[in-house]
């Protein structure tokens, strides 16, 4: 075990750096660029029961220090992921992967989680109850503690692997949602998903995104995400995975000081495809600069 290693729900990670779902596909595009085995792990593209095209385009917009997306969970469906994406991934990635799951009903979450739980490559299930870009699913589960609890209980009943529940920041009381997930058996919490946002085109005087609203990510949301990681990690005993605007080794350390046991990197991968590798490479020097011997020692360190 190196000085970068951390543990997430009993599984050792070589380092705490994890590309976030929706910014890393099913891994293969990045495996062409660098050896993705340098990562702690990664969370693959949000997967649903059926194949989805997602929302109409345009579904990307820019913001100061960030971006908006309204992709709307485009994915080939869980059966194609198991038949095609996971075998392809097995050629290039030799660590347990995080399977990110989305749904429009409790039954859909259950079915997709059950299928992915049975895949040996899958180390964790990340249940996304926080997608702001789909209607009648996703975030509607993550903004109501009771609905969140129902999804978690149902998924836990059919799975054996650790269940990470990915939370939405688009709530007034993130702690109550996190606690409801913990009480229902969640093994970890990841936060934050994107922040609901929009842009308007001055020429057309219409929303830039065909979906009208989208999710804001990138450095612009980092302080907001950090605050929520701080609040949630103070309130729950299960591990917290921090994400939202993380772009550097310093950001990873800050998230861990706030209470994150591991950290996901999202939008930074889209701006710089080598972002995660660079963060990992920079890590030892940055740890030295701040006098950190082993990274796991600083988790929650700012809580005093």
């Amino acid at each position, binding site marked *: 075990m190196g000085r970068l290693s951390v543990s997430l729900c009993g599984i050792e990670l070589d380092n705490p750096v994890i590309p976030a779902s*929706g*910014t*890393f*596909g099913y891994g293969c*595009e*990045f495996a*062409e*660029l660098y050896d993705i085995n340098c990562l702690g792990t990664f969370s693959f*593209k949000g997967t649903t029961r059926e*194949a989805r*095209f*997602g929302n109409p*385009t*345009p*579904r*990307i*917009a*820019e*913001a*100061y*220090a*960030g*971006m908006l*997306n309204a*992709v709307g969970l*485009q994915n080939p469906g869980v059966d194609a992921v198991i038949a095609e994406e996971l075998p392809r991934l097995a050629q290039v990635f030799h660590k347990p992967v995080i399977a990110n799951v989305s749904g429009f009903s409790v039954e859909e979450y259950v079915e997709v989680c059950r299928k992915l739980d049975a895949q040996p490559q899958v180390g964790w299930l990340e249940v996304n109850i926080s997608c702001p870009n789909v209607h009648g699913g996703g975030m509607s589960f993550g903004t109501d503690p009771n609905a969140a609890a129902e999804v978690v209980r149902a998924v836990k009943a059919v799975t054996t692997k650790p269940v990470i529940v990915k939370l939405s920041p688009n709530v007034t009381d993130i702690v109550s949602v996190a606690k409801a997930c913990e009480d229902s058996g969640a093994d970890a919490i990841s936060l934050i998903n994107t922040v609901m946002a929009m842009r308007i085109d001055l020429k057309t005087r219409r929303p830039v995104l065909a979906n009208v609203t989208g999710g804001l990510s*990138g*450095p612009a949301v980092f302080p907001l995400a950090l605050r929520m990681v701080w609040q949630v990690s103070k309130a729950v005993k299960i591990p917290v995975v921090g994400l939202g605007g993380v772009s550097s080794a310093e950001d990873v350390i800050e998230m861990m000081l706030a209470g994150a046991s591991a950290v996901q990197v999202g*939008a930074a*991968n*889209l*701006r710089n*495809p*080598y972002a995660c590798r660079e963060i990992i490479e920079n890590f030892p020097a940055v740890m030295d600069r701040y006098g950190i011997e082993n990274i796991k020692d600083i988790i929650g360190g700012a809580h005093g």
Partner: protein
Amino acid sequence: MKQGIFTVTGNSPLNARYARLALSGDTSGISAPGQFVELSLPGFFLRRPFSVCDWDSSSLTLVYESVGKGTRALRELPAGTRLDLLTGLGKGFDLSRAGAEPLLIGGGSGVSPMLGLARRLLESGARPRIILGFNTRDELILLEDFHALGLSPTVTTADGSFGIRGFVTEAMSVPHSFFYTCGPEAMMRAVAEKSPVSGQLSFDARMGCGFGACMGCARMTVNGPKRVCRDGPVFDKEEIVWAD
């Protein structure tokens, strides 16, 4: 795909609408005309995708239109500025399908990749014919560059101020073995419908990453959803599903 640092060697307007950016650097990532680059602009989060106009082993040129804040900022970059680029992105035009007399049809900023394509078709022994469409005489670009290749493009302008009055389809009644086109979607659709033969079309899209990760630029095709950035930007005529 290759990431590299490029140096601006020229950045000057071609007319009131379009400008040409010349960059020097390692272009070994580029394998086909019609591929694009993603350029990182200081102060902007997302990279900007641009079709490659032409390139050699150590330089490339882009033609761009200042349509928003990013491309307006691009106009201000002086020679000597160093820029971070991803090069060799996407699937370019397939030269092997050209046949003896391919027809190249560019409209507006879509004229840009036709130059690099024409050069390579000539090198491969094909005899390309070129049709270039613009709104008006003042927006003409790259005509002298095609002349320098020994080609005489047919020019159409919507207002009749130069060449043939009307759209590019007015000039398409020439025999051709295959077509390659880039321009506004309405133009490309009219081209695809008018041409009796097969062809390839290069699409524009609002992109997030440009290399296939974010799924921002998906487009429905007869073979299911495809990423314009990675599975395109060049698609075969037979694959296209046109929006109604």
